[in-house]
């Protein structure tokens, strides 16, 4: 059954249709929430709150719009509210990230490479947490969740040019903060 039909049925109160939609989107919403709270229980709770909001707002959803985009907008707004209100908001400092540059192993065995890859990924995610929320959000949507550029613009309700400049700044900022773990920066201005 396609998404539009499921949405239509869910709007009419069909619980099984809503369940199918939840199964389609819960992981994506969870990833978005987890990207901000970095705590599985809290992210799970946030995801549930977001999906309850979606369920309650379903009668007001216009069928001609994109359900995924609409759901993401609710999720993004909810996460923003959460960050504003939450006293649990955790500020990650670069001291939490780890020590020393991450060497890319050459010729080591597969297990070591895999471990190093995991460590590198963990560092990237921890550094991501130190970015201001609007940059963290746009990088989560575009580079973590892999949403199309145009959809990111629709979700955030900003012009594509704004997405462009915000992504540019976010990636530069992330790389700058990653520099101690990547090596020495340089180049022509």
């Amino acid at each position: 059954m396609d998404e539009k039909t499921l949405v239509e049925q869910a709007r009419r109160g069909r619980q099984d249709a809503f369940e199918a939609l939840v199964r389609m989107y819960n992981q994506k919403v969870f990833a978005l929430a987890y990207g901000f709270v970095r705590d599985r229980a809290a992210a799970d709770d946030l995801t549930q709150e977001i999906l309850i909001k979606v369920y309650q707002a379903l009668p007001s959803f216009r069928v001609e719009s994109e359900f995924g985009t609409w759901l993401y907008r609710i999720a993004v707004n909810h996460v923003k509210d959460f960050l504003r209100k939450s006293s649990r908001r955790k500020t990650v400092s670069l001291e939490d990230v780890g020590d020393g540059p991450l060497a890319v192993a050459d010729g080591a065995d597969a297990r070591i490479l895999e471990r190093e890859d995991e460590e590198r990924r963990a560092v990237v995610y921890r550094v991501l947490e130190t970015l201001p929320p609007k940059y963290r959000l746009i990088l989560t949507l575009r580079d973590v969740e892999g949403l199309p550029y145009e959809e990111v613009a629709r979700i955030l309700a900003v012009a594509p040019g704004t997405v462009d400049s915000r992504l540019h700044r976010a990636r530069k900022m992330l790389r700058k903060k990653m520099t101690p773990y990547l090596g020495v920066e340089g180049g022509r201005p």
Partner: protein
Amino acid sequence: MTCRKAERWLLASFDRDLPGPSREALTRHLGVCAECRKRATEYGDMRKQLGLGGLPEPLPRFWERLEARLADSRPADPGAVWARLWVRAIPVSLSLIAGFLIATLFFLPAGAELTQPEALLLTEENPIADTRPFIEEGRREVRDLMILFASDERIIGKR
């Protein structure tokens, strides 16, 4: 091309295809600038790490837990709301009507005595019937006086 411009185009290339000349210029620059090549590798690696992280899974039995919470927060069905209101409205309306009737019976002042014109109207009698003889008598006097004066004018005319 400067390294700054190369970085801008490099980052833009992650989101959309660069026009042919820009792509070629960037490729040429990366071919000669070791720093930008290194930077490009780092950006590529960073994006790969972000994307490769995979989406984390929610806690087990996600739907079952959500379903329980949904039951408590079901959206209000306008039909059901009206039906519930209607069922409540019947006894409320009946008790209001009964209350009004009781108030009418016990609390309204007893009917006041009718005034004379009201009583006459009620019995379909003419309210000026009693005064008619006086009016008639007055009219007779006036007619006599008019005849008197008229005859007086005839006398004056003859003179």
